[in-house]
């Protein structure tokens, strides 16, 4: 429990403060508003500090705090009526088998160090993904959580995270390829 113990406060800050930026990034990409993201991070810190005794040293503090942040976000969204009351295990987006795609030239575009990707355009394309897909990308590709940790944060089975991640990246790759082509970065 957070409280008056100076050691607790010190240990908490040593653990949590370096995570403030990734937490804020996650919050900003979930809420899309700086003010909301700041409030979300603050609430996350408060809850984490109050329940610091429940954190097990040696486990991933980032996953622990992402889980708290995600939980606060989902509850707030529910309160505002912005999201279904539960996160579906098998969302509509997860339906159907994935078929092999024609990725001709796409890997070259995505791995070409000469292409200078603008943050805003990549942010826009990630932001356009369905929420559950976006979460998977934010947690695993950006947050660097394991599939298991991401599943805990998102409240779904590990297999669902794996599926969402593959589907999210495929959509994203297609969109990024289109961006590169529309900017004339690659020849048809």
């Amino acid at each position, binding site marked *: 429990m957070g409280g008056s113990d100076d050691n607790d406060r010190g240990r908490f800050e040593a653990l949590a403060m370096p995570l403030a930026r990734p937490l804020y990034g996650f919050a900003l990409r979930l809420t899309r508003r700086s003010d909301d993201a700041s409030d979300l991070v603050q609430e996350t810190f408060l809850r984490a*500090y109050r329940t610091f005794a429940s954190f097990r040293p040696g486990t991933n503090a980032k996953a622990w705090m992402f889980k708290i942040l995600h939980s606060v976000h989902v509850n707030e969204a529910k309160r505002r009526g912005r999201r279904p*009351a539960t996160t579906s295990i098998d969302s509509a987006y997860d339906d159907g088998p994935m078929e092999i795609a024609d990725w001709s030239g796409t890997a070259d575009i995505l791995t070409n160090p000469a292409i200078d990707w603008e943050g805003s355009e990549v942010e826009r394309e990630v932001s356009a993904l369905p929420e559950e897909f976006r979460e998977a990308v934010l947690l695993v*590709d950006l947050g660097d959580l*394991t599939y298991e940790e991401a599943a805990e944060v998102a409240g779904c089975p590990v297999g669902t995270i794996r599926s969402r991640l593959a589907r999210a990246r495929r959509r994203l790759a297609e969109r990024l390829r289109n961006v590169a082509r529309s900017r004339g970065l690659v020849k048809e």
Partner: protein
Amino acid sequence: MAERDIHPIEAIHALADGRLNAAEREAAERHLETCASCREERDVAAGTVRVVRIAMPDPELPPGLATRLGAALDEIDRAAEPRAGRSWSWLVPLGAALLAVVVLVVLLPFGGDEPPVGERIVASVSSDFAAVQAGSLPLELPEADPAALEAFFVDRGIDFEARVFDLGMMGFNIAGGRVEVLAGRTSALFAYRGPDGVLMVCRMYLGTLEELPEPSRTLEHDGIAFRVYERDGRTMVFWEEGDVVCVLTSDAPAQAVIDLSFAKAVKV
């Protein structure tokens, strides 16, 4: 055979992440040896992650947020140390008369008889179970599904995540829920009926295990601590999920209540 069985797309992405176990990795790599399309899929997966990581670094914190975070923690610390010496110092200017009043209030008998909050929580959880069983604590939304019940709690002002368990696979169906005060705190209460009409009541509220009294048993499962109380023929199993305390209560055999708790608890 379905297309996904022919081309293991998800496994290819997991392979690109280096997150397959040895057997899966071997199978995926064997597939890649003969499938150019999946080799391309792997490269696209890796390339997409590369672009996202390069183009989307963590943003800078807004000015003042770090200060706000520190101030918020200070607030918690201040609230947690009401008896520190510096907290009493503000009383000095008010004089001995006011101090006397304070002392009198502290010594008044009505405050001293109340049991500790943890004891009241356990007692209320137990007696509320009996009230639900007797029908004197009526439930709303009978036969709702978990999503409907979660939405109900949000509508009723529950400001934490009241995760309604789906116990259908274990033969327990939702009998309804209500918002009920528990030792001065708002709590979500929902009930299940299981085989032979067995009643199982779940309660969620903001709190900690630490404030509860000494349990009959302390257990640990999957890294989660559980406190078990056995009173009046009922078993209550408490555990924490973040800052929410969950408790399952039933007059079913104790082990059944414990097993259900183990099955539904999520480490936060």
